[in-house]
């Protein structure tokens, strides 16, 4: 299948681009895509989110392999913030670990597979309909206390049983949309009201247009103020 992928992102309003704590990775030649959302109440969260998405598109672990996959990334994260946490509060915060969601999608032949922890979501759009919403299916399922992957091994004890997986068949002209939670929640609300949120997103062709569209949704109160990330994968007709 011929596919093309684009990625868009915007920091939470009031934050700088440096303070953006989502991450995404796209490896089109391997047909692997991932988004992650570093939890804002943890520190060094962006670094953790980046390790997870980069790791995913390199290795494409299955749900069963995830625990082993995460372990070297945890070591890299610890290495990365070594020496940076010198004040007492940075030291304490770093000891709590960073947390992040992870949504990874791979395409093989005419099938797609997805794996998720937390509330970053995949939507499969076909013929003007949301064919599949994963792992959350309804807007009301979003809470601000999702289970997330931690950079500290002991915090992940209860997480492995919550890894969600799904797969499906891919057809010409299908669209796979990977989003972090705020945008995903907006998307589901719109879809539940019978609107076509993917149509507006597909018109975006520049980062400026994406930023302007996000600003407009936030100003109208339709989009919660949070970091926003979208990876859009289109299958050729």
């Amino acid at each position, binding site marked *: 299948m011929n596919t093309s992928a684009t990625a868009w992102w915007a920091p939470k309003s009031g934050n700088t681009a440096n303070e953006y704590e989502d991450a995404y990775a796209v490896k089109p030649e391997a047909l692997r895509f991932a988004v992650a959302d570093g939890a*804002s109440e943890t*520190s060094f969260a962006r670094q953790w989110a980046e390790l997870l998405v980069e790791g995913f598109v390199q290795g494409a672990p299955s749900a069963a392999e995830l625990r082993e996959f995460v372990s070297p990334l945890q070591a890299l994260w610890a290495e990365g913030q070594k020496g940076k946490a010198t004040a*007492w*509060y940075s030291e304490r915060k770093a000891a709590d670990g960073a947390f992040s969601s992870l949504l990874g999608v791979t395409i093989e032949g005419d099938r797609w597979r997805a794996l998720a922890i937390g509330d970053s979501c995949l939507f499969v759009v076909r013929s003007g309909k949301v064919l599949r919403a994963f792992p959350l299916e309804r807007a009301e399922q979003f809470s601000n206390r999702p289970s997330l992957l*931690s950079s500290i091994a002991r915090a992940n004890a209860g997480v492995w049983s919550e890894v969600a997986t799904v797969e499906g068949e891919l057809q010409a002209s299908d669209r796979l949309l990977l989003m972090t939670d705020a945008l995903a929640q907006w998307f589901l609300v719109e879809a539940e009201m019978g609107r076509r949120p993917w149509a507006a997103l597909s018109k975006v062709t520049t980062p400026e247009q994406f930023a302007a569209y996000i600003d407009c949704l936030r100003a109208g109160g339709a989009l919660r103020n949070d970091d926003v990330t979208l990876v859009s994968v289109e299958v050729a007709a």
Partner: protein
Amino acid sequence: MSYEAEISRNNPSAFLFLIDMSGSMTDPYGNGKRKADGVADAINKLLTNLSIKCTKSEGVRDYYDVGVISYGKRVEPALVGELAGVSLASISSVANHPARVEERTKKEDDGAGGIAEVKVKFPIWFDAKAAGSTPMCEALKLAHTTVSEWVGRHPYSFPPIVINITDGEATDGDPMSDAEALRALSTQDGNLLLFNCHISGTSAESILFADHEEGLPDQFAKLLFNMSSQLPEAIRESAAREGFKVSEKSKGFAFNADLVELIRFLDIGTRPANMR
């Protein structure tokens, strides 16, 4: 709708603690500790937790202004060290200026079925010093002066939260009207929230977020309950999610309860379910 303002660096919120340091606070409670020492410990833990909560990779973000006023022999700002005399300080300057940092050992699950002893830095901003009477009315008045200036400068912020910690007996009159005046302060997002923590020498069961005064052990507890603000919906929901029993009438009132619990419910953004 009220109490929905996002807490951000542009629109920070504020915590002001009023601490009873009267002579009666030298009495022991529950575990045999002096009440004053228990409260000092709790305040230091609260300031520690707030600092950590606001810590990001690059340092502490100023989501809050924080102050401590003690009342006893005198009514005055009570932080020690570099922040002495400051009535409200940004959380980053609080984090960066503890009076001293002690080291304590803590037992922790090592993730492999064992228990590990880890050394933790424990900063101190506030020392127990109990003497004199209980001028609670005066403390509420000083809180009013401090916070009314703050709300003037932060009209769009989540309203300030004032937490009064006492063993109950005001010696300078009925604090009800001062409490009402304080609760009348507001930002566009709602009225100031006044929470009261009653620390009693009795071994009565601890209560958090009480919703009626019947069953409260004494007249001081009842008075403090009636001085307290009702919990806003967002805090109530957050407390319910954590398994606390709350109703629409629940107030920010705690009796012999862990003070640290009180501020766990004030969110800034996403908190993972598996983070402790």
